[in-house]
Every structure is written in structure tokens, then in C-alpha cells.
């Protein structure tokens, strides 16, 4: 993509995101979120995040795939364990990065 295409895309995403933020404050002020929509919105983070995480870990690095030469698999698995036991964002980030660097240095 050229520089101006990237600017156009960022502006488009920004405008849509602003519209979502403004929606009920400005256009539908005083109206409740429909129950059906609220039910769908509840599952957006839970569904989107693993769809981003898993492919990026398994197929994201220089050695993509399910095999032991892919350092992201082990680093990602340990980070997942830390994430679920401590629920600490910064701890998960630091542990995953340090482990990846150690595994890369070792290889």
C-alpha cells in the first residue's frame, strides 16, 4: 500500500470508530442498546482475541508451524500459562518476550 492509501485506511477506521463512540451519546441518545446486540457484543473480545493470538504464535515467526524448532510455540504456551494464572498483562508480556529471546539465542 502506498502512503496515502494507508492514511486513507487509518482515517476510515478512525471515522467508523468515532461513529461507534458517538452512536448512543448523539444519535440514539436516551435509547437502550437492543438486548440482541448486547448479547452479540459480549462475545466479540472472547472470539476475536484467540483468532488473533493463535495464528500469530503458530505461523507468525521465521519457523512457522507445529514443531519444536518454532520458538514461538513454547514461549507462547508459557506466556498463556502465566496469563491465566496471574491475569497480569505486563507479566505475560515480559515473560513471553524474554523466553522468546532466550530460545532464539539458544537455537
Amino acid at each position: 500500500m502506498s502512503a496515502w492509501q494507508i492514511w486513507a485506511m487509518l482515517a476510515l477506521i478512525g471515522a467508523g470508530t468515532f461513529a461507534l463512540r458517538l452512536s448512543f451519546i448523539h444519535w440514539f441518545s436516551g435509547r437502550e442498546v437492543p438486548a440482541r446486540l448486547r448479547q452479540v457484543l459480549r462475545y466479540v473480545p472472547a472470539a476475536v482475541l484467540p483468532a488473533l493470538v493463535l495464528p500469530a504464535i503458530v505461523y507468525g515467526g521465521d519457523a512457522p508451524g507445529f514443531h519444536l524448532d518454532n520458538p514461538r510455540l513454547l514461549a507462547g504456551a508459557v506466556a498463556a500459562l502465566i496469563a491465566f494464572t496471574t491475569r497480569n498483562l505486563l507479566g505475560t508480556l515480559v515473560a513471553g518476550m524474554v523466553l522468546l529471546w532466550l530460545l532464539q539465542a539458544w537455537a
Partner: protein
Amino acid sequence: MKVEASSRAAFWEGVRMIAPMLPGIFPFGLTAGVAAVDAGLAPAHGIGASILIYAGASQLVVMQLIGDGALPMIMVLTAYVVNLRFAMYSAGLAPHFSHLPRRWQWPLAYMITDQAYTLTVLRAEQHPSRTDAVPFYLGAAGVMWLVWQIATAIGAFVGALVPSSWSLGFAVPLIFMGMLVLAVNDKPTMVAAVVGGAVALLGHALPMNLGLFLGAVAGIAAGVLAEWRLGRGKA
């Protein structure tokens, strides 16, 4: 608008309440700046994304998709899906903001984040009689905005100096993993996560990052279905 002493106090209360979250937000912002450069963009694009979009998770998603060479249309749609929750926040804040003139509504709406929304709505629930939600929100959301912009700008410039062998891009899925833990808090959300991840993994080789989009849609559908099947809130 006359600024009264109580409004000023509420503003500073908002600043104080957001302060403990900043140590977590700063590295997140740094990563968003680094991710832009990592995806091959100029630092100005990373800073521009923070100002134009101002939503961390979707900024990281877009950077990841740019790095993968996805179709621009898929990037825009995926960012909208990730940011759908802001419609819910908008509804939650509307009772506090609706009486304001438009020149106040627009900047206040632009500054909506998970954190500023949560703090403001929780405070309003605990103190229903208070009428100073706007200055409180302004204090919390304003500081958050400033810190985010500074952190992404630093990340965008530092990221340009870091060699790619450091694999800083790996920080993006790690941050999402840390956020995922908070999003999965019952059986239906667990089902949504497993289906979303599995479909995206199976579809990783699809062109234009369609796998991510399909995974997200399948995961949301599975979560709603699981909720319906488990009779949650429907019994």
C-alpha cells in the same frame, strides 16, 4: 461553562483514579508504536493511527494485518468488529453526556476507552446522586489520551532503531493473550474463544487474512449459541 470548585475536584479525582492503570497502558502504547514500524510503516503512520483511531487493540490488529499483507477492506472490517464494544460504552455514557452541547459531546465521545468508561460508570453506580460525571470523565479520559499518545510516539521512533531479530512484533499476540484472560469468564465466552481460535488457526492459509475474520464471526456465533444452549439468562 463556569468551572466550579466541585467540578475541579471531580476532574482531579478522575486523574487520580486513572493513575494506577497508566503503568499498564504505557507499555501497551509503546507496543502499538513499535508494531506500526514493525509492519513497515513510517513512524508518522503509527502516531497518526493513535490520533485517528485511538483504540489500542484495533491499532495492533491493523498493524498485524498490514504486516501480513491483508486486503485493506478486511483491515477496516476487522477493526470495526474489534471496536464494536464502543457502541456499548456509548450507550452506558449517554445518560451523563446527552444534555451537553455537541461541541462537548464530540471530544468526550472521541476519548472513550475501556478504562475511562469503566471508571465513570462504576463511580456513577456507586454515587447515583452526583452530577459531576463529566469533569470526572474528562480528568480520567484526558490523562489516558495524553499518556497513550506519548507512549505510541516513543514506540514509533524507538521501534525504527530496533533490529528485527528482536522479534518485538511478538509482543502483540502476548498483549492480546493477557487481554483474552479477562474476556473469558464463563462457559459461553470459553466456547467463543476455543471456536474463534480454532477456526482462525485452520483458516490461517486463506488469502487476505480471511481466517481471522471467519474465526471472529464463528467464535461470536458459537458463544451466542452456547449461551442459548446453556440457558444462561433465558431459563
